[in-house]
């Protein structure tokens, strides 16, 4: 049985590797062959929802930033913040599915990404309480942004989008954690995610200005 508890000495990379492999197998075998040739305009439903973090850059930025932040949390057990994130995504998703008017604005997503990125860039090791706080709010922002507003096929698209929002941070957690695991041998490895997080924060600041300008125009 797969253990959800990470070892006290090491990181959670082995657990996440296992989760990623299982998810990839489920997605691989669960995909109908014809979809392998579909382009984005042709894809629909669950698969379109899965690709939502890629198609919606603001959501992708936040999910990626959260993945890196999670890796920066040098707690013995990184699973708990991830569980908080997953629960927040699902709660927000269900809430917005029922009440679509609660969908967040671009500014809310950008502000959340900015806070997550600055925390990653600013802290050598992100405090656990801050990780829980950011996991909860990132999950709420991503979950509420993931819900499809189109009537036809709304449920499978939204479901795919929620799963995409949950899986997407893991792709960034993996490389970031790989770097942190090796920082004793290469001390500058931990700098790479911090510098990249600063760049993401800079992109967010500019995007907030762009959104502000478009709203004012």
């Amino acid at each position, binding site marked *: 049985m797969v253990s959800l508890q990470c070892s006290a000495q090491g990181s959670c990379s082995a657990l996440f590797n296992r989760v990623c492999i299982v998810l990839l197998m489920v997605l691989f075998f669960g995909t109908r062959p014809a979809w392998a040739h579909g382009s984005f305009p042709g894809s629909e439903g669950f698969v379109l929802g899965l690709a939502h973090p890629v198609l919606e*850059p603001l959501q992708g930025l936040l999910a990626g930033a959260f993945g890196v932040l999670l890796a920066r949390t040098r707690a013995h057990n990184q699973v708990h913040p991830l569980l908080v994130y997953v629960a927040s995504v699902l709660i927000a998703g269900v809430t917005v599915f029922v009440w679509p008017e609660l969908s967040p604005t671009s500014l809310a997503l950008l502000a959340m990404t900015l806070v997550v990125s600055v925390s990653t*860039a600013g802290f050598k090791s992100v405090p656990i309480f801050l990780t829980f706080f950011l996991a909860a709010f990132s999950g709420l922002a991503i979950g509420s942004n993931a819900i499809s507003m189109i009537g036809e096929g709304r449920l499978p698209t939204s479901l795919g989008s929620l799963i995409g929002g949950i899986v997407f941070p893991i792709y960034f957690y993996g490389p970031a954690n790989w770097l942190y695991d090796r920082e004793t041998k290469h001390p500058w490895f931990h700098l790479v995610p911090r*510098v990249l997080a600063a760049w993401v924060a*800079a992109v967010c*600041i*500019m995007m907030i200005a*762009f959104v502000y300008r478009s709203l004012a125009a």
Partner: protein
Amino acid sequence: MKFESTFMRGLGLVFTAALFSMPAFAHESAAGFDGGFVSGFTHPLFGWDHVAAMIAVGIWGAFLRAPAIWLLPIVFPMVMALGAALGIAGIPVPFIEPGIAASSIVIGLAILLAWRAPIALAAVIVGVFAIFHGHAHGTELPHSANAIAYAIGFVLATGMLHLAGIAFGLLIDRPGGKIALRGAGGVIAMLGAGFLFGIV
């Protein structure tokens, strides 16, 4: 040093990849890259005053060593984006052009004179000048078709210029490297003076 060799290998890979990236430009379109990423990426590269200052920040960071080597390239893009936001929002900042020229002069002289400024002071100096650079870029920004692609290109180009400066700055541990760096600082300071008096 292991850091240098790994870093230089990585940088070599980036440059090699960049050389092979030319054909991809054939696919850019006004709604995607042309109106966004390429426009943002090339924007910081087309002003020599900006290029000189951003490379100088990287060299100075390497000159001051850790933590400045990574702290300055973190501070500069974030504060520059704040300056750009002020420019986009139409909030005026005085002495933009003299400020940009002064950044090359001050940081260039700091390298030339091998000034080991305290890290907090170095961050403040770099941050203040980043406001001028960001504001200048912000006011010149087009109403881009793809804002996020533009912003990513813009920040990426700025970061790459810092990395170029850091890569050059890593020569400090090589024989004659310190002299080369201080010489480069002198050249940057002279360029800054040229920008300030309109000679260059």
